[in-house]
């Protein structure tokens, strides 16, 4: 068995590392917005790093365990409790059949990741468990979770080595974030003045932000060539300057091709922070050299993968 959802909060969907290899067919990869938190959650409960998890937005998720389990919640702190008693995030927690999980709402950060030992028993679509809501496929019936949904785990007899050691210090999410990255392929389409404006301005996250992209408000950026360029492929973290002159940071549910110029791409290591910004948070951009960027990202990846060795 597994867990029965009693409340799904604002938006909870099942995601993994995405539906890989279909972007050339117009298919958005979906997957967790904050992949780093997903990986840590899976490693904490002894899963393969890309196992399916529940991505909870803002909080408010609750459920009843219908079998024994070991779970954890990473990402934004949503004050989880088992049977009314507070439990830590970023820690593997053992529960038994009938235990009730309730979560509050995040005060900082936006997305939380609920991982269960052995992962969720669901059919993959096109190689992935990720929910693509536009196409209504993947995850749980191709939609966001709702009260009464019943999820199954891949095992009802969880066993995990060194459970008591499976705990790390949670990160702190700030409402003022700097996203570092590399100048974009269309950087030359922006004048010196425009580039200065973009890299020196503080932008505000708007409430229209979602998994497709983080929409920002603030100083307008002009493009020499106007805003209609020939459409080309869009990577995660690419920052498009749209017709309004305002930036959007591309998310996991982005369209696969786009016709607006891209001034910068956010480093993979910093997408962890980008995925956690809330409406009204402030955001700045910083340009790095390619070598510096690679160094930072490699270092970050090493730190995360070394976590799994802690509990072998």
């Amino acid at each position, binding site marked *: 068995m597994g867990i029965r959802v009693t409340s799904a909060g604002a938006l909870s969907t099942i995601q993994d590392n995405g539906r890989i290899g279909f972007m050339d067919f117009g298919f958005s990869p979906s997957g967790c917005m904050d992949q780093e938190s997903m990986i840590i959650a899976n490693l904490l409960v002894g899963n393969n790093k890309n196992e399916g998890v529940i991505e909870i937005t803002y909080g408010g998720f609750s459920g009843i365990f219908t079998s024994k389990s070991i779970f954890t919640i990473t990402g934004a702190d949503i004050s989880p409790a088992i049977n009314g008693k507070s439990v830590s995030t970023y820690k593997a927690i053992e529960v038994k059949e009938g235990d009730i999980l309730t979560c509050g709402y995040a005060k900082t950060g936006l997305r939380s990741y609920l991982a269960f030992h052995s992962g969720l028993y669901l059919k993959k679509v096109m190689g992935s468990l990720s929910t693509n809501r536009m196409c209504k496929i993947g995850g749980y019936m191709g939609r966001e979770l709702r009260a009464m949904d019943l999820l199954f785990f891949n095992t009802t007899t969880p066993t995990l080595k060194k459970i008591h050691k499976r705990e790390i210090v949670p990160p702190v999410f700030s409402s003022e974030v700097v996203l570092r990255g590399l100048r974009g*392929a269309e950087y030359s389409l922006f004048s010196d003045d425009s580039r200065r404006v973009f890299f020196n301005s503080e932008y505000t996250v708007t409430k229209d932000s979602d998994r497709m992209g983080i929409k920002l408000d603030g100083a307008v950026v002009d493009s020499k060539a106007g805003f209609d360029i*020939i*459409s080309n*492929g*869009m*990577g995660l973290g690419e920052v498009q300057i749209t017709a309004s002159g305002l930036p959007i940071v591309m998310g996991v549910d982005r369209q696969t091709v786009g016709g607006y110029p891209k001034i910068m791409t956010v480093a993979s290591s910093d997408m962890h922070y980008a995925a956690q910004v809330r409406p009204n948070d402030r955001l700045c951009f910083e340009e790095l050299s390619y070598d510096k960027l690679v160094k930072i990202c490699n270092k970050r990846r090493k730190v995360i993968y070394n976590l799994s060795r802690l509990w072998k």
Partner: protein
Amino acid sequence: MNLKSNISDIKYFPVADSGVRMDFGKKIDRDINDSVMKIYNAVKAKPFCGVYEIIPSYCSILFIYDPLLTNYNKIVANLQRLLRSENSNNSLKSKLVYIPVCYGGDFGEDINDVANHTKISVDKIIEMHSSPEYLIYMLGFLPGFAYLGGLPPQLTTPRLKNPRTKITAGSVGIGGEQTGIYPLDSPGGWRLIGRTPIKPYDPYRDNPFLFRAGDYIKFVPITKDEYYMIEDQVKCNKYFCKSIVYGA
């Protein structure tokens, strides 16, 4: 590799630490796109280690890679080697896919509007729309949505001022100078001239997508009865679109 465009015009850009952008030029034209497709077909046939997305567009390709398995320099070196190589036997071949379409009536609500705008009769519109072999420049916007090149310019009809909130999947339309098939129910502003009973995209099919960038499409007019017959076969997974190797 015999490319129609100049190799020295090709530019490479890193996309943070996980992508490579390969730019072939700055306009929509057959020669540039031909070069894009040659590289796309070659890399799809023999993928580079660590590269997991290859997204072609009119005049560029975006490669997305896993930084644990490869890096920008390795990918660019592989691409340059590919450009210099003589052998293109290992590439995927483009195919020509025949798409059955029932034009007009309930399936093509706007065909009379198109006739009024273009001053061409409905019968002639059907004949003109179904004669070209349309090149698929790329797929995007929606899964399986093909950006087609080759609509006879006389059929150009402006988009609706007020887009529909729902266009049925399979609808074939004209929007400005473009034509295409809506693969999913979606909002849209194109003029609907017909509908196909086949599914360009089906997530549960072995091959979820009927065609890809670089393939060609030819629309084949069918009657209403044929439409319903094919629709039934599609439901049972028993209909297969005719397709041949392009240029065969």
